[in-house]
């Protein structure tokens, strides 16, 4: 090292830009190689194919009595199937234009003509707990973890959760049978 300082670079590398090019090329090739091999090591942690294959379920909603809820396992998460009473529906509709954190009409959260069936992912949008049925000031759900409260349309009304309980992709296959996912 001392020699190159003393002797100057002219003796060893007549064209400095050529040496720079080799340095940059080597570093770039090494960085590209590391990035290419790093991706499999990162991606292995993403959901595996068999996990992704658990995509859809079917459920007969007529099994849910009026005013009650059944919790079904959907993609390893709770799925709420709630059979709402007319009072619960009208309470939800009455609040359509209230001061909502995540505005949505009750109609947009159910299928047309199936107002009594509210199908929701039972995961609190705050930190993922499962809210308890019927709790809170609005009679929808109450999350025991941090006190989020949802109304009878599953809309967030109070507490730290930012969003309404999510409505999954689903469709009525027959009058009473739904396919979720």
């Amino acid at each position, binding site marked *: 090292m001392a020699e190159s300082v003393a002797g100057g670079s002219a003796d060893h590398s007549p064209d400095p830009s050529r040496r720079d090019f080799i340095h940059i090329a080597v570093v770039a090739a090494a960085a590209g190689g590391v990035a290419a091999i790093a991706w499999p090591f990162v991606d292995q*942690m993403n*959901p595996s194919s068999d*996990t992704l294959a658990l995509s859809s379920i079917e459920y007969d909603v007529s099994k849910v009595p009026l005013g009650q809820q059944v*919790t079904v396992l959907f993609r390893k998460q709770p799925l709420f199937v709630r059979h709402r009473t007319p009072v619960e529906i009208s309470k939800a509709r009455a609040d359509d234009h209230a001061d909502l954190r995540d505005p949505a009409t009750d109609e947009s959260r159910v299928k047309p003509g199936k107002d009594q069936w509210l199908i929701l992912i039972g995961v609190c949008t705050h930190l993922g*707990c499962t809210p308890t049925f019927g709790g809170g000031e609005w009679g929808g759900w109450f999350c*025991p973890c941090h*006190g989020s409260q949802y109304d009878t349309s599953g809309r967030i009304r109070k507490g730290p959760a*930012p969003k309404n309980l999510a409505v999954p992709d689903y469709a009525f296959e027959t009058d009473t049978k739904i396919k979720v996912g």
Partner: protein
Amino acid sequence: MSGPSSYEPKTAIERWLDSRLPIVRFGADLMDFPTPKNLNYWWTFGGILAFCLGTQLVTGVILAMHYDPSGAGAFNSVQHIMRDVNYGWLIRYIHANGAAMFFLAVYIHIFRGIYYGSFKAPREVLWLIGAAIYVVMMATAFFGYVLVWGQMSFWAAKVITNLFGAIPVIGPSLATWIWGGFTVDAPTLNRFYSLHYLAPFVIAALVVLHIWALHVPGNNNPTGVNVKSKSDTLPFHPYYTVKDGFAVSVFMILFAVFVFYMPEAMGHVDNNIPANPLATPAHIVPEWYLLPYYAILRAVPDKLMGVMALAAAVVCIFALPWLDTSRVRSMRYRPQARLYFIIFVFDCLLLGLCGAHEPDEPFIRGLTGFQLLDGDITSYLWVSRIASLYYFAYFLLITPILGLRETPLPAPESISTPVLAHPAAAPAGAAAAPEKKG
């Protein structure tokens, strides 16, 4: 690491080894390390922490021999350890309570560092490595807690991993990546087991760096005054090996009280119910050592801001060397700082208390005030907000401003001065420095 080595190989074998791998010299120099002679018992927590790490490593490796990290088998294998494995109950209780003891010791160690200004120049890197150890410890404890795969384990995993989901844009895919599925599930348990086994070795490596960074400037001491001469120090062995050894023994008594007489005192009964993804326990709280952060998280009504406040609470610890403007290290000579520090310690305990209670509960039973925004003014919600404010004010306002404005008491000339000035040191000379006689 330290100054010139005083080790002299005595046998031919030692001389032969010393010129090839000077490992005996390395150990001898560690034992001979000049240590301030006025270190009090708050300084024994380093040794206690080394003991805790060793305990967790030994018991953890043994538990791994009997544990099954599969989603279907994890919970049952923990019961198998508790009921069937010879002394499995003992080893698991040592490991589970050992985590709590580890945190007890690390909190005392951190508070000691704050009180005596052990983070100030030239020990900033030492402090940063220590803070990094603390963060890895929290991650390790969390991974370990999940492995039991009971209800509290499962929902703790759910809440903590969902914190990452709060990050804008990348949050949801980051959470999915951590889970290996649509939510916390068997793949999550598997990877947490792998990481729980890895993390202690990361801690051990950081501890080596921590001790290295300690041995460059040497120990701070209760006066905060730099070591001026050799008469201010004692060799680490036998003086501090014995003092640390005594402290570890006392600590082990407390440890044993928990292991043998109240092993479930810090656990939650709900964790004896197998993980159920459909039902959240009615009251979920983290382990006691994470409660202050939990209180800060809940004090903020917005999801992302709550998570950011939680992260900021940890970042404050890292930033402390650059937030403290006082040139006096030890709060012994900073009466005002000492007062704010004592309030800070109680504030952290208060935050812990808040974290253990529901936000809507009244702070004092039967007491109700008036509704302020989203909660009663006398509820834990508002107490935790006030306590969180003090937490951040201590780091971001009090510490920087006080260092510039306060009038500290005069610090002693050297480590020896206050010892010699003490009435107990009279008659001067004879009894004051018995170690110099030999």
